[in-house]
């Protein structure tokens, strides 16, 4: 089983064969080893790599907690075309979601716009602070799911960039 990964913003891949794995991220040395993994509580797994135990749990949206350390992660099946509209170098489909509840002040893009990595997409105000949410990568705005004045909850998807 092979998956493309995006961990803490870096593209990479994980390959799992029975109880062996190989993990690599762009620019990093590949790691290989023996492992086993058992689901423990719902949403949680023990991953034992060469005898070292990691507790991995679904954290906040888009994150896994690895021994308590929050790790931003996505995995994609390279054979799944839906999940792979653009080259992996630009990271596939990205949902831009509200990190905290608040109000949308401005929407800076429209559906179909091309955007650069780091370009502002939407401004959300929470606790009297305005927070501009930026595109994680270059691509095209596939969906705009919000509008100025809308109240949003933490985790709510606002914009989708492909």
């Amino acid at each position: 089983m092979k998956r493309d990964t995006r961990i803490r913003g870096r593209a990479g891949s994980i390959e799992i064969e029975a109880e062996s794995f190989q993990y690599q991220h762009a620019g990093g040395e590949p790691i290989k080893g023996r492992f086993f993994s058992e689901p423990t509580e719902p949403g949680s797994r023990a991953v034992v790599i060469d005898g070292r135990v990691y507790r991995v749990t679904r954290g906040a949206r888009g994150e896994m907690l690895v021994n308590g350390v929050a790790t931003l992660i996505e995995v994609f099946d390279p054979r799944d075309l839906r999940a792979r509209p653009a080259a992996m170098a630009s990271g596939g489909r990205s949902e831009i979601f509200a990190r905290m509840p608040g109000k949308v002040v401005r929407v800076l893009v429209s559906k179909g716009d091309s955007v650069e990595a780091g370009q502002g997409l939407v401004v959300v105000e929470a606790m009297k602070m305005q927070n501009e949410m930026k595109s994680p990568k270059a691509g095209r705005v596939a969906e705009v799911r919000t509008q100025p004045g809308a109240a949003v909850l933490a985790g709510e998807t606002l914009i989708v960039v492909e």
Partner: protein
Amino acid sequence: MFGKVLVANRGEIAVRLIRGLRESGVRSVAVYSDADRASLAVSLADEAARLGPAPASESYLHIDKILNAARKHGAEAIHPGYGFLSENADFAEACGQSGIVFIGPPAEAIRKLGSKTAARRLAIEAGAPVVPGTQEKIANLDQARQVAQQLGYPVLIKAAAGGGGKGMRSVEREQDLASALRDAASEAFRAFGSDEVYLEKQVLEPRHIEIQILGDHHGRLIHLGERECSLQRRHQKVVEESPSPVMLRHPELRARMGEAALRIARAAGYANAGTMEFLVDRDRNFYFLEANTRLQVEHPVTELVTGLDLVAWQLHIAAGERLTISQTEVSWRGSAMECRIYAEDPENGFLPSPGRIAHLHEPAGPGIRLDSGVYPGWVVPLDYDPLLAKLVAWAPSRDDAIRRLDRALAEYEIGGIRTNVAFFRRILADPDFRAGEFSTAFLATHRLAPEDPSPEMEAAAAIALTMEEAMEDAPGEPLPAAPSSSFKSPTHPRLIDGPLWLAAGRQSQLR
């Protein structure tokens, strides 16, 4: 003792109180807003009464609705918890007029200590040290300039009615005084409905140390020692401990501060549980700051080191019983430390992170107490303070308590929302914190950067997520790498026939 008590609060403190009531053989009535229908507190109580919609003004702050619920359910007394109506003298009085006991100090004592300016006057009259400053509210800018000149900069502007840092401004130079005064007054008005502010000399590198007091309605008043609460973000406490590291080095300070706290409490005619907060400077001068006329969030710390159950004593005292412990009988054992677990994002300015708790693993084991108000699947509402739980460790020494707390934090997993669990582990690892060398400025001056996962941790995350998603995509089908069969095939030959658990039981007896 009462037969039935209404808990006029929510979250972890409602759970704590319901537990205390059950232990005392008292029936509990939980109240809830529409956002809290499915709360842990409601599910643990004996009876429950709806107050109204989610906003606190229409539920937990609505005096008439709470009194109606108490009458309807036949509750003889109301415990207000902390926050909400707990320090509202009008509420305490309204309870009395309805023939319901308010579990807390007399309304008159709340009034005397409720306004910070009134409390300061009282403390001065009682001979307790206070931070130099004005006793009266600041009427205008000219007066503020004059007072600040006398005190010497830096000065602090504070809201008379306030707490939690709202309406507070530090001013280092005279040219900043006018705007700070204006901001503080308008913030105070928005938060407390009163724009009354006063000026104080700013104590440099202060530690926040408070004294727990307990008194009955028959004239006995004792103190239960201190809690150090210097670790604060935006004037909100996050870590509390007892003994204070200052007292560990200078034990005589406890008795001196305890006596000052008791003088103020006596002057106010205080009864039941309460807290006198002090600032302590580098030279161990202490200054009375304010009174909290209620049970504190951090009360478990005192319970663990004194072995006294504050909630049980609150009930006995409110029921008119005598406090049977004398000052000399109070003893302190070991060290206790508490972390306030919040649904907030420490990497994003501590912004609240409400939402659904998708996964929850709570720590347990030796010396750990968890006062929690949540469960897996609970949706943390937007409407209230995002405190989820309080994790408290007790151990024979401060170092042991820190290690134990860190161990428990490492076990604590909360998924679906962001929390400050990992942030506490970075605080506990800090050398200054470990050495007990800190002030209220600690969190503002220490960079506690989050740990980066190692490549192997990234691999573990990738393996787990890949396997989880594969399982979701193909439920029931064996995973390519699922080695669970190793658990199903016993490695030892079967010695005994019969059900597996019975066999396993017999086998372990044989060993």
